[in-house]
C-alpha cells in the first residue's frame, strides 16, 4: 500500500482507523492535538519535515469534522518557505483549513502576491489555486490586476493561464468591480480564440459569470461561443485527450451553451443559423447507450442544448423534436435520465404550442407516477399538473384520485391539493367537479382543507342545475359506515340546503335525512355541531306542512344545546329555537342561501402562495401565468363604469329558479326575494353590492356569522320590500345590453405593444380575454388567437370576422360559437403579405354573456414591420447600395418634427424591435443611426431597405430621416411607418400632423473614402 511518505502521519491515520468507537477516536485526536500544540509552542526546534507532518495531521483531524482552532499561523507561514515541498504543503493546508473570513489569511496576502508576480511558474500555480479557492474581497482588490495580467500574457504557459482565469472568476464573484467592463470585454473575446481547451474551459466559466452579471458588454463574445460550440460539436481540432467517452469535452460544450443562454436573443441571422445547425446536430446525435458515463455526458450536453433551444424560442418544428426526444427519455431504464426528462418536459410547458405534443406522452407520464423513485414521482406529478387542461383534465384527475389511495403519505397532501385545483379549473362539467371533490374528501379527508369544501358549496349554490345532483351524492356518502368529518360537514350543509329537492326519493324524506345526519352528531367535534344545527333548522323550515314529531325532536336538540358551553353552539341553538317558533316567518329567515359573488378561488391563491421546491414552484407559476392568459378566474373587480356586473345580479334570486318540485307557496317565493331587496340590484349603490357580496361570501359557509347577519337583516327589513323587488327583478335581466362592458386595460396600448412583440394580450374585459401569439416567416405569418372565457358560465354567439386590408390575405380557422365555462379555445389565423402597406387588418369580434352583447373591433398586429427581417450590412455592401438608390422615388428624405424625445440608445432599441438592424459604426457621426432590413412580400422578392436617421442632440424632438429601397411604394410606406412609430408610440392614436415631405435630389457622389463624407455627399 502506498503510504503518504510520512511515517508519523501514517501511524496516526492507522491509530484513528483502529479506534473502536467515536469516543476512543475523540481521545486519540485530543491527544494528538495536545501534542501538536506543544510542538508548535517552541517552534524553533521544528524541522521543515516535522512542520509539514504536523500541519497534515491538523488537516486530517479537521477533515474528520473536529474543530482545529490553532496552528493556522504555522500553516500560513509555510507559504513563505523558499522551497517547493514546504510551500506546496503550506498552500494546500491553508486553503483547506481557512476560508475567506479568517483573519489569518490576511497575513498571507503579501507572500501570495510575491509568488503571483514572481517568475517561478510552479509558485504562481500554487498561489493562483489558493486565491481561486478561498480568496475574499481583500484579495480581489489587491490581486485582480496581477491575475488579469497573467491570464492575458502571451508568455505564460496554459497551466498558469487556466488557473488565472478561474482565479479571476473567484475574485469577480467576491467583488464585481475588479473587472473593468470597458477594458475587459475585448480581452474576454480574445480569450475565446484560445486553442488550448484547458484554458478555454476555464475562460468559458469566467465568461458565464461575467455575462450573467451584464451581458450587454459582451456581445462580441457571442459569435465566438457559437464558433466554439461548432468546433466541439463537429469534433474539429479537438485533441484526443479532450474527448471524454468519445464526446469532445462535454463540460466545455455545456458551459458554452450556458453562456449563450444569458444573451436575450441572437440577432445576427448567420450566427443564429449556425447555432441552430449545431443544436440540431446535438439533438439528433444523442442516443441512449449502454455506457453510463457516455450516457451522462452526452445527456448533460443534450439537456443544456434543450435549455438553449427553449431560451431561443426556436421554431415549432425543433420544439416538437425536443419533446419527442424527451418522450423517449422518460421511458428509459436509467433513473437520472427519466428524472431529467420529466423535469425538462415541465419546463417545455412554458413554451406555447408544444402542449399538444407533450400530451401524446400522457400515458407514459402517468406510469411515472408509480416509479419506484419518489423524486421521479414528484416530477411526474408536477408535469401532469402543468399539462392539464380542459381536454385531459378528466383523465388526469381521475388518475390522481386513483393514485391517491396508494400514494405514500409524504405526497398525499400535495396530490389532494393539486387534484382539487385541477378539478376546479378544468372541470368539463360541474357534476364531475362535485364527484371529484367528494371522492377526494372520502379518500384523503385529512388533507382536504376547508377551502376545498367551501368551494364546492359555492359552486353548488351558484348553479341550481347542480343542486339536486349534489344532494343525492351527499346522501349516498352518508350511507357509508365511517366517513370523514369533513364529509359530514359538506353533506350536512348540502342536505340542509337542498334535501327538499329530493323529498320524493326513497330514503330522503325530511325525517330520514334528519336521522341519518343526526346519527353522526355524537362522532363529530364542536366545530361541526353548529353546521348540523343549521341543517336541522333548514330541514325544519323545508318541512311543510310541519311534522310535529320531527319538530319536537329538533326542538329538543335545540333546547339541549341552549346551555352548551361552546358559545357558538349555544347561540345557534337559542336563535334557531326562537326562530323556529315563529312559524311561517321561519321560511323567510332561513331561506336558501343566495348565490355567491364570483371570486378567485382561495384554493388557487393558496397554491400560488405555497412555498414549494423550485420545480414545483415553476409549475405553479406556470399555472398562475396560464390563469391570466386563460383568465379562467373571475375576480370581484367590477367594470369601471359602474354598470352592474352579472355577478351582482346573480345575488338576486330570480323567481323562475324556485319553481322546483317542492311545494313552496307563492308567498314563500316573493318573500324569499323580499329578503334581499335591501340591495338595490340595479344600479347598485357604490358599496352596497360589494358589502353584501362580502357578507355572503366566505363567511356564509363558514357558518354562524353570516347566518346571524342574514337573520338580522331579514328581521329588520321584513316583508315590505317584496313588492317592488319583484318588478325590478322582472325587468332587470330581460333586455339585452349592448357594449356596456368595459375593456380592462388600454386597447390602443395593447395593440402598440403587440406591434413590437409577438405574443401578448390583445383584448380583455371582465368576461373574456383574447391573447395572441404570432410567428412570422418571410412574407407569411401565423397568428393564433386565444379566446379565454373567464367565467363559470359559457360565452355564446361568439363571432369573429376578419376585415383584411387589400395587401393582406388572411384566413381564420373556424371559431366555435360557444366557449365553455373557463375554457380557452385557440383559433389559428394565416396571413400572407402581398405588398407594402400601412393599412391594418381588423378583427370584428362579438359574443354574448348573460344579457350582455359585446362587440369590439380590434386592430390586428399584422403590421408592416412583421414582414421585415433584420440583416446586417457591412460598409462595403452598404455604400454602393446607398449610392445606387440615387433619389426619389427610391430614396426619400424628410425632416420629422414632434418626435417623442428619446436617447439614441432608446431609438436603436426601438428600431431593433421593429426588426430594423442598427449597423453600429457605419456612420461616423455619433448622433446618427444607420439601419438595414429586408422586406418580404408574395409579389416581390426580398427587398433590401436602408435607413439613416440624423438627430440633433440639441433638439431631440426633430430629426432627418432618409429611407431607401428598390421599390418606390416600399420606400414611401416604410418611411411613413417609421415616422408613425417615432411620433406616436405609445399613446396618441390620432395621426401625427403631416410634415411636408421634401425629397431632395441627391448630389453627385464625391470620391471621398471617408464614409461620413460619402454619406453626406450622397444625401
Amino acid at each position, binding site marked *: 500500500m502506498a503510504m503518504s511518505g510520512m511515517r508519523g502521519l501514517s501511524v496516526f491515520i492507522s491509530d484513528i482507523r483502529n479506534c473502536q468507537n467515536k469516543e476512543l477516536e475523540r481521545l486519540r485526536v485530543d491527544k494528538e492535538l495536545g501534542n501538536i500544540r506543544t510542538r508548535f509552542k517552541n517552534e524553533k526546534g521544528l524541522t521543515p519535515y516535522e512542520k509539514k507532518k504536523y500541519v497534515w495531521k491538523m488537516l486530517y483531524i479537521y477533515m474528520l469534522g473536529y474543530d482545529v482552532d490553532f496552528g493556522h499561523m504555522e500553516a500560513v507561514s509555510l507559504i513563505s518557505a523558499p522551497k517547493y515541498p514546504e510551500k506546496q504543503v503550506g498552500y494546500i493546508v491553508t486553503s*483547506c483549513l481557512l476560508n475567506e473570513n479568517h483573519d489569518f489569511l490576511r497575513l498571507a496576502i503579501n507572500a501570495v502576491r510575491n509568488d503571483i508576480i514572481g517568475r517561478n511558474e510552479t509558485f504562481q500555480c500554487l498561489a493562483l489555486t489558493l486565491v481561486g479557492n478561498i480568496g475574499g474581497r481583500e484579495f480581489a482588490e489587491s490581486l485582480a490586476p496581477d491575475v488579469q495580467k497573467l491570464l492575458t500574457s502571451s508568455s505564460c504557459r496554459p497551466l498558469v493561464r487556466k488557473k488565472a482565469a478561474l482565479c479571476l472568476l473567484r475574485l469577480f464573484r467576491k467583488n464585481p468591480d475588479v473587472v473593468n467592463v470597458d477594458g475587459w470585454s475585448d480581452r474576454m473575446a480574445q480569450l475565446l480564440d484560445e486553442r488550448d481547451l484547458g484554458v478555454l474551459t476555464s475562460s468559458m466559466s469566467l465568461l458565464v459569470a461575467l455575462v450573467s452579471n451584464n451581458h450587454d458588454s459582451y456581445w462580441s463574445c457571442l459569435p465566438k461561443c457559437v464558433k466554439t460550440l461548432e468546433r466541439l460539436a463537429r469534433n474539429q481540432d479537438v485533441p484526443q*485527450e479532450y474527448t471524454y467517452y468519445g464526446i469532445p469535452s462535454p463540460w466545455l460544450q455545456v458551459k458554452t451553451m450556458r453562456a449563450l443562454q444569458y444573451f436575450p436573443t441572437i440577432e445576427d441571422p448567420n450566427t443564429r443559423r449556425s447555432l441552430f445547425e449545431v443544436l440540431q446536430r446535438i439533438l439528433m446525435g444523442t442516443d441512449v447507450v449502454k455506457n453510463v458515463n457516455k450516457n451522462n455526458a452526452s445527456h448533460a450536453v443534450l439537456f443544456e442544448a434543450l435549455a438553449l433551444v427553449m431560451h431561443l424560442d426556436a421554431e415549432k418544428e425543433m420544439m416538437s423534436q425536443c419533446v419527442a426526444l424527451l418522450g423517449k427519455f422518460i421511458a428509459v431504464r436509467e433513473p437520472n435520465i427519466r428524472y431529467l426528462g420529466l423535469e425538462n418536459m415541465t419546463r417545455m410547458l412554458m413554451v406555447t404550442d408544444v402542449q399538444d405534443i407533450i400530451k401524446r406522452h400522457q400515458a407514459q407520464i402517468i406510469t411515472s407516477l408509480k416509479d419506484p423513485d419518489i423524486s421521479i414521482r414528484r416530477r411526474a406529478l408536477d408535469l401532469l399538473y402543468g399539462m392539464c387542461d380542459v381536454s385531459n383534465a378528466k383523465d388526469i384527475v381521475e388518475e390522481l384520485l386513483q393514485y391517491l389511495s396508494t400514494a405514500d403519505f409524504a405526497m398525499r397532501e400535495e396530490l389532494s391539493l393539486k387534484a382539487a385545483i385541477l378539478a376546479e379549473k378544468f372541470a368539463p362539467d360541474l357534476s364531475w367537479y362535485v364527484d371529484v371533490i367528494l371522492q377526494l374528501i372520502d379518500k384523503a379527508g385529512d388533507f382536504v382543507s376547508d377551502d376545498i369544501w367551501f368551494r364546492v358549496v359555492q359552486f353548488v349554490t351558484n348553479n341550481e342545475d347542480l343542486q339536486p345532483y349534489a344532494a343525492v351524492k351527499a346522501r349516498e356518502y352518508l350511507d357509508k359506515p365511517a366517513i370523514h368529518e369533513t364529509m359530514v360537514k359538506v353533506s350536512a350543509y348540502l342536505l340542509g340546503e337542498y334535501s327538499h329537492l329530493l323529498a320524493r326519493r326513497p330514503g330522503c324524506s325530511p325525517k330520514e335525512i334528519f336521522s341519518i345526519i343526526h346519527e353522526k352528531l355524537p362522532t363529530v367535534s364542536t366545530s361541526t355541531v353548529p353546521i348540523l344545527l343549521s341543517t336541522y333548522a333548514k330541514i325544519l323550515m323545508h318541512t311543510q306542512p310541519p311534522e310535529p314529531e320531527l319538530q319536537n325532536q329538533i326542538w329538543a336538540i335545540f333546547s339541549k344545546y341552549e346551555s352548551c358551553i361552546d358559545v357558538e353552539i349555544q347561540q345557534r341553538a337559542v336563535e334557531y329555537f326562537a326562530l323556529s317558533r315563529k312559524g311561517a316567518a321561519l321560511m323567510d329567515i332561513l331561506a336558501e342561501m343566495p348565490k355567491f359573488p364570483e371570486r378567485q378561488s382561495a384554493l388557487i391563491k393558496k397554491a400560488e402562495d405555497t412555498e414549494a421546491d423550485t420545480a414545483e414552484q415553476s409549475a405553479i407559476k406556470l399555472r398562475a401565468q396560464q390563469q391570466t392568459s386563460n383568465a379562467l378566474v373571475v375576480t370581484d373587480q367590477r367594470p369601471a363604469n359602474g354598470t352592474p356586473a352579472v355577478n351582482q345580479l346573480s345575488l338576486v334570486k330570480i323567481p323562475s329558479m324556485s319553481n322546483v318540485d317542492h311545494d313552496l307557496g307563492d308567498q314563500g317565493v316573493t318573500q324569499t326575494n323580499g329578503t334581499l331587496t335591501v340591495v338595490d340590484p340595479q344600479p347598485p349603490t357604490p358599496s352596497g353590492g360589494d358589502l353584501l357580496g362580502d357578507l355572503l361570501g366566505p363567511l356564509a359557509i363558514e357558518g354562524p356569522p353570516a347566518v346571524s347577519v342574514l337573520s338580522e337583516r331579514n328581521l329588520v327589513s321584513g316583508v315590505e320590500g317584496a313588492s317592488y323587488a319583484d318588478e325590478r327583478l322582472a325587468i332587470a335581466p330581460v333586455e339585452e345590453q349592448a357594449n356596456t362592458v368595459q375593456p380592462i386595460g388600454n386597447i390602443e396600448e395593447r395593440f402598440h405593444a403587440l406591434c413590437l412583440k409577438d405574443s401578448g394580450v390583445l383584448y380583455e374585459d371582465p368576461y373574456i380575454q383574447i391573447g395572441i401569439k404570432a410567428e412570422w416567416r418571410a412574407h407569411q405569418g401565423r397568428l393564433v388567437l386565444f379566446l379565454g372565457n373567464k367565467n363559470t358560465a359559457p360565452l355564446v354567439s361568439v363571432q369573429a370576422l376578419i376585415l383584411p386590408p387589400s395587401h393582406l390575405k388572411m384566413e381564420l380557422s373556424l371559431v366555435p360559437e360557444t366557449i365553455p365555462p373557463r375554457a380557452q379555445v385557440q383559433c389559428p389565423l394565416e396571413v400572407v403579405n402581398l405588398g407594402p402597406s400601412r393599412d391594418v387588418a381588423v378583427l370584428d369580434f362579438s359574443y354574448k354573456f348573460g344579457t350582455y352583447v359585446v362587440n369590439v373591433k380590434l386592430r390586428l398586429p399584422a403590421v408592416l414591420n412583421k414582414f421585415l427581417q433584420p440583416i446586417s450590412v457591412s460598409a462595403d455592401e452598404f455604400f454602393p447600395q446607398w449610392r445606387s438608390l440615387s433619389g426619389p422615388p427610391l430614396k426619400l428624405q424628410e425632416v420629422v418634427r414632434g418626435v417623442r424625445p428619446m436617447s439614441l440608445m432608446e431609438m436603436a432599441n426601438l428600431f431593433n424591435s421593429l426588426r430594423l438592424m442598427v449597423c453600429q459604426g457605419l456612420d461616423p457621426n455619433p448622433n446618427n443611426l444607420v439601419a438595414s432590413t429586408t422586406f418580404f412580400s408574395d409579389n416581390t422578392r426580398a427587398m433590401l431597405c436602408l435607413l439613416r436617421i440624423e438627430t440633433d442632440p440639441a433638439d431631440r424632438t426633430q430629426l432627418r430621416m432618409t429611407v431607401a429601397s428598390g421599390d418606390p411604394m416600399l420606400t414611401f410606406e416604410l418611411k411613413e411607418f417609421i415616422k408613425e412609430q417615432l411620433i406616436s408610440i405609445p399613446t396618441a392614436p390620432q395621426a401625427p400632423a403631416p410634415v411636408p415631405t421634401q425629397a431632395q435630389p441627391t448630389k453627385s457622389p464625391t470620391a471621398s473614402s471617408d464614409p461620413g463624407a460619402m454619406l453626406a455627399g450622397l444625401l
Partner: protein
Amino acid sequence: MIHFVLLISRQGKVRLTKWYSPYTQKERTKVIQELIVYKRYASLYFCMCINQDDNELETLEIIHHYVEILDCYFGSVCELHLIFNFPKAYYILDELLIAGELQESSKKTIASLIVAQDSLVEAAKEQASSISNMIAQATK
C-alpha cells in the same frame, strides 16, 4: 458552481472535504447531511453540492473524471489509497477544480502536472539529502 466536495465512506467516515464557499464549522457539520449530487464507487460516496440550476449530469461526470484520474495515478484506486494518501487526493483535486469550476478536462494534462509536482518534491528531497551528506562528510 460546485460549493463543496465530500468523500464519505459507506460507514459515514469522511475521507476528504473541500469547501469552495465559506462555511462555519456548524454549517459544515450540518451540510454533510444535505447532499445534492453523489456517485458511489465501491465503498466510497463522492458528493458535490451544486446550485439548483446547474447541470447535474455534467457534475456527475466531473466526479467520474476525478475518479478516473485517481485511478490512473494510484493504479486501480481503492479507499485505502485515499485514506493514507489524502494529501495526493487534494493535489489532484486542485488540478481539476478551482473556484468550484472545472479547470482541466484532459486526464493526460493533469497526470503530467502531478508527476511534475512529485518530481519537484523528489528533487528537493535529493538535494536536501545530498546537502546533509556533504555537511556530514565535511564535519567528519
